[in-house]
Structure formats: C-alpha cells, structure tokens
C-alpha cells in the first residue's frame, strides 16, 4: 500500500481552505502539495508547523502532522521537533507578521543554527487575520488601519537577514508564478540545512498596493540572469532590489554541516527512539560523583 505512488490528493485534507478567494496563500499550499508529491515523501514523516495568521492556517490543509502553535513561535517549535526526532521532515510556515515581526529574533537565531528545516513565509506586507494593520514588511509610507498617516519604518529585509545569519538556502517565490514557486519549494525541501522560502503572496483583501499586478510588473527570475547562487556578495546585492525590479528564485545556497550533524546528543539517532530502560542505572552511575 504505502509503496504505491502517491498523488497530490493524498497530501490534501478534507478541510476546504478558508482563505479569501484569490489569496496568494493558495499557491503556496499548492506549491507544498506538489513538492511533497514530486518527492513522494511519506505523509506520516512530515510535520508542518505554523504560528497564527491567515497563512498559518495552512497546517489544516495538508495531510501530514500539523502543529498550529502560537503567533510568532513556529520556528522554535519546528526546531524542537527536529531535536525530538530528526528523521521527520519539518516545514515551518507562517506570515510576515508572524515570522519577521514578533518572531524575528527566533528566525535569525534559528538560521544561525542551520537546523535542517524549511521555513516558508507567506509575505503579504500586511497583517491579514487581524484585518489589515502594518506588518514589518510593509513599505514605508503604507497606509493601514494602524498607520493611517503612513508607516514610518524601513521594511525588514528577510533575504538579507538570511544571508548574514547563516541560513544555507535562501529563496523567494511569488504566488503569481505557482510552478516556479513549487520548484523552489521542492528544492528547499531537499536542501540539507535551514532553507528559507520567502513568498510574495498577495493579500487581496487588505493590501491594495502590492497586488499580483504590482508584482508581475516587477518580478524577474534570478536564474534568468544566471545569478551565481554560491556567491554571497552578489546575493546581498540582489537582496536589496525592490520597488523597481524584484528578483525571485534562489539567492544563495551552501552545503554546510547542520546543527543535527554536530550535536553529540543526536549521534545515536532520534531522541524519541532512545531506550528508556537503563535510565536509573545511568543515574546510579552518575550519583558516584556526588560522593
């Protein structure tokens, strides 16, 4: 049974996505589903983790284990799942507010660890679920419910943050180009180490500026420009493009040992599989130190 080839429908749940019609997050879901299908990963070996936000509802629509946790804390939970069982394929997901706002510290610290997980951020430059406040990626000057006279903050640049913080696969997708998005998602899932997929995923309800059209006029593919994904310097340059031309694709990738490779505690396989029948004796042995 389990060895039969799996179809995309095998990775879907019965729950109909609750997003607004046209929401960019549909394409992200499709990207994940088709990546899982192409890679023929066993559903039971996948955990999708999320925070809170429209985007974070994605866990309910993928037929894998799901952990729909707290706003901003998807990445620590995902990291913890890897610690508990590093045989699982772990995908952290969420929104720009979730990951780059309240969760910004965790995001950067997780990249420093190069934990082997994939982080997909549905970046719509706005807080969707709370009905349209400014987000950390909102452009300066953007008018929102919480910034009626215009946001006064320079937007967070997640790609650049990734580049200087140790992530080993840093990419950007666009919901308006689902097959390209599916492709980078798939590569992120096969990458060993922390992979970031920042997705330009329009909020059709609350972001009337960064629409599909706005992005379509600007995005171009890094691979079309023969961008060298092993060159950090040019990746940083590319990371700063916005407004006029917006690159999508892979900015940077590197092969590096992961945290799981290096942590001596994980040398004997997943923690969840460690035997529990000798723990008392272990303590008894250690007790001698106290004498």
């Amino acid at each position, binding site marked *: 049974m389990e060895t039969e080839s799996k179809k995309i429908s095998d990775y879907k749940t019965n729950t109909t996505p609750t997003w607004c019609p046209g929401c960019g997050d549909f394409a992200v879901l499709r990207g994940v589903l088709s990546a899982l299908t192409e890679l023929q990963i066993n559903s039971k070996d996948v955990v999708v983790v999320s925070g809170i936000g429209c985007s974070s509802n994605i866990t309910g629509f993928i037929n894998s284990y799901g952990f729909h946790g707290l706003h901003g*804390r998807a990445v620590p939970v995902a990291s*913890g799942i890897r610690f508990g069982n590093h045989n699982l394929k772990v995908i952290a997901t969420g929104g720009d507010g979730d990951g780059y706002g309240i969760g910004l510290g*965790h995001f950067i610290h997780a990249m420093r660890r190069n934990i082997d997980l994939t982080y997909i951020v549905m970046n719509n430059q706005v807080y969707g679920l709370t009905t349209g406040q400014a987000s950390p990626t909102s452009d300066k000057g953007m008018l929102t419910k919480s910034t009626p006279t215009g946001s006064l903050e320079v937007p967070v640049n997640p790609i650049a943050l990734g580049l200087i913080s140790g992530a080993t696969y840093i990419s950007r997708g666009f919901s308006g180009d689902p097959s390209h998005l599916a492709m980078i998602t798939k590569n992120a899932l096969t990458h060993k180490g922390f992979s970031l997929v920042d997705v330009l995923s329009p909020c059709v309800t609350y972001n009337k500026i960064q629409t599909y059209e706005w992005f379509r006029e600007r995005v171009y593919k890094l691979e079309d420009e023969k961008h060298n994904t092993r060159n950090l310097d040019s990746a940083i340059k590319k990371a700063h493009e916005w407004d006029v031309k917006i690159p999508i694709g892979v900015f940077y990738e590197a092969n590096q040992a992961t945290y799981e490779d290096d942590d001596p505690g994980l040398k004997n396989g997943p923690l969840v599989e460690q035997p529990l029948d000798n723990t008392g004796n272990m303590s008894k042995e250690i007790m001698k130190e106290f004498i």
Partner: protein
Amino acid sequence: MSKTEVVLRVAGAAGDGIASSGEAFAKICSRSGLHLLAYNSYQSVIRGGFIWLQIRASHEKVFTHGNKVDFLIALNQREFERNCVDIVPGGAILYNSDKIKPNKDKINENIILCPLPVGQIIKDIGRNPILQNTVALGALIKLLDLDFENMANVIRDYFGKKKQTAMEVNLQVSKAGYDYADKNLPQFDFKLETDLDNKRPVLTGNQALSLGSISAGCKFYAAYPMTPASSILHWLSAHSIQTGMVVKQAEDEISVINMAIGASFAGARSMVGTSGGGFSLMTEAIGLAGQTETPLVIINSMRGGPSTGLPTKTEQADLFQAIGASQGDFPKVIIAPSTVEDCYYSTIEAFNLADKYQLPVILLSDLFLSEHMESVDSFNFDAIIDRGEIVTHKPSDNAYRRYKFTPTGVSPRAFPGTSGTIFQATSDEHDDFGNVISDVFTDPEMRTKIMDKRMKKMDFVKKDLPIPKLYGTDDAKLTLVSWGSTFNVIRESMHFFSQENLPINHLHIKYLAPFQSGIQKILETSNDTLIIEGNFTGQLSKLITMETGFKINHTLFKYDGEPFYTEEIIDKVRDII
C-alpha cells in the same frame, strides 16, 4: 562534653574561591560518614560583594546550616570583621595573618584567634592567592581531628589527572596547613563521630532534580541562563555526552519552551528550567502545552521578586504566577519539592504525571532549595517511567482521534511518524480529531465537550496524588503549615518542640494544583494554625482559603531574601502557645 557537630563559615568576596573550599569541606565530611547542609549567601556580582558559605556537619541528619558559627575562615579584613559577631563562644577564626590584622577590641574575648602566616606556611610551594583557602582548610581538618587522607583524596578528585601540578601544589599546601595547625594552634573539643565506611552523597537541589530528570528519561532540556536555575543547565550540559540528553541554550525563554513543546510533541521527554522572569515569558506557551495536550515539565526556581528583585536571594512568591500562568482555564499541575531528596523524586513524578495526563507540570523550587548542598542517603534508582497511553499502531477504524473523548479525559497519544495517526495539534480550539473549530465554524457544543474533556483530567490527577501527611502528634495545640523549601527548617524546629514536649504538628503541602483532598479535614480538625511562608502576601495561605474556605490563624512571613532560621520559628510558636 565534646561537640558532635560543627558549623563552618567561609567568608570573603565573590571570586575568592569560596564555593570550591566549601565543596571540598563538604566532601571531606560526607566521605567521613557525616551528614551536612550548606548554604551560600552571595550577591548579584561576579567579583567583590559580601559572600559567605556556611556548612553544618553532624553524624545525625542536618536540616539547616545553623545560625551560629564554630569556625570562621575569613578571607579578607572586611569579612573578618563583619562575620566574627556570628561566632559562638569558644569558636575560632582562621585567617591569613599576612593580610588580616584583627582589631582585638572588636572581637569577643571568648573567640579564639587562629592566625595562619600563609606566606611562611607555604613558602615556595605556590603563588595563587586562592591557596590561602587550602591552608585554612588543611588547618581546620586538623582542628576537627578529621582524616587528612580523606582531604587528600578530595583534592585529587577535584583536580583530576589533567591538572596534575595544581593538584600536587594543593596537596602540599593542605598538608602544610594541617601540620601548622598541629604544631601551633590550640586544640578544640570536637568528636564528629565519623564513619569512613559510610560515604554519603552530597548534592544540591538542582543536582538532585537534574539526576531525577535523567532517571525519568528526559531527553531534551532547554533553558536560557537564569539564577537560580542556571546550574541545571550547566550540570546537564556537562553530562550530556554521558546521558545522551540534548541540552540546548536557546535565545530566550520563549524559544526555550516552544522548542521543548516541539521536542515533546515529537515524543521526547522534555523539560525546561528558569526563574520568575523567564517564567513570565513562558506563560503563553504553558497554555499552548495545555491546549495541545503536550506533556512538559517546567521548573521555576523562585528568587526574590518582584521583577529582577533579588536575583541571588531566596523567596517563595511565585505561586500565584504559576497558578495564573496563561489565559483561560486548562489543566496544569503544580508541585513544590521540599528537600534535596524530594527534588529527585518530584522530578520523576512530574514527568510521569505530564505524560500520563498530557499536560504541563510546574515544579516550584526556590533559590535555597536549588542551590544549597545537602547530604542524602542514596536514592532509589529503580525509576518507574510511565509514558501514559501511546498509540503505536494504525487504529483499526483508520480514524485516529487525537483528542478522543474518554472517561478520564485522557486521549491516547501518537508520536509523529506512527502509521495511521496523522493529526493536527492546534492552539485554536479544536474537535476530537484536532480540527480547528474557531475558524469557519464555531461550535459551542463541541467547544463545551472538549473543554470538559480537558478539564476532567484534573480530577484524575487529583485521585493519583498521595494522601496529605501530618507530621507529629495528632492532637496538637498548633499546626504549622508550609510548602517548599521550608520543610527542613520546620523539621528541625519540630525536633525541638518534641524535645520540649510542645504539642505541635506540621502539615507540609507539596501539591498545589490540583489541591489534595485531605487538607481541608486536617486543618478543620486542628486546634490552631500557623502558616510559615517566604513571601509578603501569604500565597499558600490564600490558596488554602481559596481551595477550602479555611482561614489560617497565625502567620510567619519572611521576605528579606534570607531563608528561615529555626529560632524564628521557635520564637513565633512560643509567642502563640
């Protein structure tokens, strides 16, 4: 009559090596079959400050570090002067007479000066200023008539093979101190009734707790440094290769607890440790553990609050913080261990309750309990690990209900990777499958059912708890009520009361949530009651009233950062009866 117990205080500044001298003395005693208890009084500073460590040793079980000092090792002039007032008549001060010049006027004439001309004693053996401690300790071993070879072994173990030179220097220096005392210092009348064949372990509450977590099969410990919980992080880190535990210092306490929830969700027993400030940051995720029914052990080692407060002082004022941790109603267990030994067993119990009932268990320790050293009889290492009901195979109906309605409210758990058990864990309210119900559709009936299911678990935890124990006579004139680390000092007071034939008994409350059933009856049948707590508002007292309606009559609250002293308890009791 010669004294059968001794109280030593080593006093100096942070960075003077007081802790290692104290530990060395403790080991010498415990390897001589003595019981002991040691407490370290220090400030939130790395160098300087007013630091002392006090050890009380006896052939009988020791419950406090005592209030009066037999021997003071003073490491600088200032501490010499500050501490000499605490010495009993007939007691002595050992000090480096090269550096310290006693002001005779200020010293009680009953106190014996034991100057140590350190420079002359150690001549060219070494130059490290910390060596003065070793000289003094060597001398003290002689004055107490303890076995020098025991001391030598402690030094050997401490430095190990890697620091061969340091070890040899210390051996020589301690012997020089010992010999100097033999020839030059007066004799003291101590008979410590040692038993070299009965070596006892000496450890701190945090060490016992850490050891308990190993016995319990904890595989993931996450923490962010915070006094007085940091030593758990250090100790477990140092032992991680041996134990196979992953020990992770994360970027903050929020990450700590969310990581641990992730690891536990994946199936590894997980624990986190912090103090009140870090606990504040963890509260949101404690609700997450409750709502997703993810087992987790959370240590809050309390220190003086509020806010940063007194980071290196003890207090018991986070009880309501634990009770109120996170929004909404959800099941959570709160346990306060009382002694170093109890730290070991409580930790194992915490893991078992967490797994069996799939909920967060908070262990409320405090600085005094976490950091003081105590000799113990060895522990029972036949740890019983109860991981609760776990689904290991595809359910026959092919529809795994992660939050299945059951008579106990406990729904068998599955770890990700188990065939046929795919489910969603959500912080949003959900149905028995784990599907969100706050989203398209809010279902008041399902909501009520799932709340009832979760909360029902608390009734069964309560049934699992032991019957509360009353120490001492049944028909006492006064019942002392307490929780946490005051157990030992009250036990010492109880010893005194029974010697004096004062009819006092003692109710020590270990399980704060759920609240044990038998307590109300005990209190209602008591003649009079006195609560003893290390806080301002009487948090346990309030909890007791809340849970039982019973109001405790007398109060002894202390919130100056210091642990209770036996005398304070005796005085208070005397006032009352």
